[in-house]
């Protein structure tokens, strides 16, 4: 590596370049106070020098040795269930200020700007509850399957964990992801624009196995109703064709049991379908011959069209992509130079075939690299090299899925659906990189 290259990232320019302008001036004042200048190089906030946990001490840098190279470390197994480094404490789910009236019927967004690859760590998977999150004793949890079946059944969790199981990687996206952007940009970061999106390896029993175990009526069965054990008793209608195809009764999430906020001890995974159908804390499956028209598929999760009509049962999440870095709220600290553009693409209709990236607001596009594996109804990571010339840039990504569908522009969505929609906003996202390197959520 060329140590003299000023464009090779801030670490070589550390420590002063870590600081904001405000922080830098404060640093100078602090340095004056502590004449001699061996001060800790603290972050840009008052009193940070004393706390110093994110500071850089030159005594810890080459050619010196930092204390962790000399002091005996913690015992093995000191953290029986590991937690992220204390330096990663910012990497958390967040609720959008003012979005919901209660903290129980609310949503916490996944920090997409901070994530690598396609798997969402379990503690960061987005959370959307309707009547709060229950904490369920798995020994007292039951799943009932009844309705148009030969024999109605009740399964314990012990039963469910004994059935033949499968593991598959799928995204879950709330139908209202990007809802706040239908009329105009309204939130600052990709966490809030797109963070009702996550992807995990789910393990469980194919729903078809359980339906067959109960002897569902193959002639009359047209739909199932899935119901949660939470206070909402949330219910959604799911076509039997989906249920027999790839729906999972899942208890495993990235190798461990589901987290309570994601449905512990068991939930439905309905690949490619609005998040709300992936019923958490699943307690009941009823087999029937007509849809149920539940509140979450009439009053909510339906789409008001410009002609006054309301679309119902809009299950499929269409192809969508977003650049997660650089993205809103970030700051390209080095004026110009190399930056990797990286983002996520997904489709409820199948696989991602291609992702194109534009740095000029959609005038010209280049095809991005796709990280393998590229899986059905799963997040796909794309990347593209970008040498920023230091002038304002408009970053966009546009994906194409295995059906040939091309992710639309916001304008195209509005032409058909107006601006009264809440759900199914899969528009191309634009990030403006201004001349200072600050990144903003805009429409172009």
């Amino acid at each position, binding site marked *: 590596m060329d140590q003299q290259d000023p464009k090779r990232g801030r670490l070589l320019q550390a420590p002063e370049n870590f600081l904001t302008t405000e922080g830098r001036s404060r640093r100078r004042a602090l340095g004056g106070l502590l004449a001699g200048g061996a001060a800790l190089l603290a972050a840009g906030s008052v009193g940070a020098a004393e706390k110093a*946990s994110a500071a850089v001490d030159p005594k810890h840098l080459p050619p010196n040795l930092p204390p962790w190279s000399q002091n005996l470390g913690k015992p093995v197994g000191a953290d029986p269930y590991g937690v992220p480094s204390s330096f990663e404490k*910012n990497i958390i789910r967040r609720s959008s200020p003012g979005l919901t009236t209660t903290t129980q019927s609310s949503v916490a967004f996944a920090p997409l700007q901070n994530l690598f690859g396609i798997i969402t760590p379990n503690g960061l998977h987005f959370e959307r509850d309707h009547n709060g999150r229950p904490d369920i004793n798995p020994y007292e949890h039951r799943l009932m*399957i*009844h309705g148009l079946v030969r024999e109605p059944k009740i399964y*314990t969790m012990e039963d469910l964990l004994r059935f033949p199981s499968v593991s598959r990687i799928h995204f879950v996206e709330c139908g209202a992801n990007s809802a706040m952007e239908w009329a105009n940009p309204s939130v600052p970061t990709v966490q809030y624009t797109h963070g009702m999106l996550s992807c995990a390896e789910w393990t469980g029993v194919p729903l078809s196995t359980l339906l067959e175990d109960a002897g569902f009526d193959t002639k009359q069965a047209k739909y199932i109703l899935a119901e949660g054990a939470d206070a909402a008793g949330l*219910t959604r209608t799911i076509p039997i064709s989906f249920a027999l195809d790839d729906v999972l009764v899942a208890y495993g999430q990235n190798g461990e049991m589901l987290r309570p906020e994601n449905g512990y001890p068991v939930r439905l995974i309905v690949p490619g379908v609005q998040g709300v159908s992936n019923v958490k804390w699943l307690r009941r499956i009823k087999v029937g011959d007509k849809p*149920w028209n539940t509140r979450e598929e009439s009053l909510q999760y339906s789409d008001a069209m410009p002609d006054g009509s309301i679309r119902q*049962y809009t299950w499929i999440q269409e192809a969508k992509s977003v650049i997660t870095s650089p993205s809103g709220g970030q700051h390209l600290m080095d004026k110009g130079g190399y930056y990797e553009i990286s983002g996520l693409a997904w489709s409820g209709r199948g696989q991602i075939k291609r992702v194109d990236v534009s740095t000029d607001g*959609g005038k010209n596009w280049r095809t991005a690299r796709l990280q393998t594996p590229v899986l059905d109804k799963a997040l796909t990571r794309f990347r593209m090299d970008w040498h920023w010339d230091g002038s304002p840039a408009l970053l966009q990504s546009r994906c194409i899925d295995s059906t040939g569908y091309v992710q639309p522009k916001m304008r195209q969505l509005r032409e058909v659906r107006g601006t009264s929609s809440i759900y199914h906003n899969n528009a191309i996202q634009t990030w403006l990189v201004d001349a200072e390197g600050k990144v903003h*959520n805009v429409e172009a």
Partner: protein
Amino acid sequence: MLKPDRMAGALAAVLLLAVALPAQAQGKYGLGQKATPEQIAGWNIDVRPDGAGLPGGQGSVSEGNEVYDANCASCHGTFGESNSYISLTNVGARLNYATTLFDYINRAMPFPHSKALTANQVYAATAYVLNLNDIVPADFVANKDTLPKVKMPAHDKVKPFPGLMSVKGTPDVKNVACMKDCAKDVKVTASLPAGFVENLYGDIRDNFRGLQTMNEQAPPATELPGAADAKATPDVPKLLGTYACTACHAVDHKVVGPAFQDVAAKYQGNAGAVQHLTDKIRKGGSGVWGPIPMPPQSGPSDAELAAIIHWVLSQPAKK
């Protein structure tokens, strides 16, 4: 070890047994139990537009008025007008079947304590909300025969949309993957207003990993959420949000319930205030501050509730 002929015999016996018991209770895997009619009856609460699933019982608009004032008005407003929560006027504008209203109230409401109303109460509340929306007359009585027959104003507006009902559905919006010279003028047509992010979200630098070169330095970890968890006293303002107290109360003005400052002024210096307020909050009640009742609150732990009450009582009187 069985000899082959004996094994064949045993196998035949098993097959015979299987034929003799066509409705084998344990299925192919021998897992799960047969659900009894009683078990199913307790959980089988869903209601369809055709009325399937509606229980016996009934409720009138006037009965519903009482149920509503006692259980619903604290959030939805006396006349369903509150915009803080789902506006009940949406029922007239968006809902296509009255049965769905029954199903939802029955399974998910009242918000602090769902599935607590009797079938008669749910019928009554349903009738009252339909009447609030001018959908049924004041003498309407809801039951399993009348409810499916209610023609909702939005009924004909709501239609399934096949384009998103299957993977093979035809999309309604089409874009093409142009690669070069796709647009002449590209302009920023909309952005966030100046100061918006700072005012609503504060300093968002800590939303990013400072380690990544595209970000400014975040505040040190000691200033981050969770760092102060060791604090002995509960963070009352946070608890007020966690337990949705702030849905109905504010510090210095009446919302649905009284201002915390008014509660403090009323009870300050009263020796029994802590116990009195503990009972009021735990059991709920009405009459002290007006007719709209406060629902019983089981959420906060005893220690949290004590901290909340001491915090409320410590609020300075209004100037």
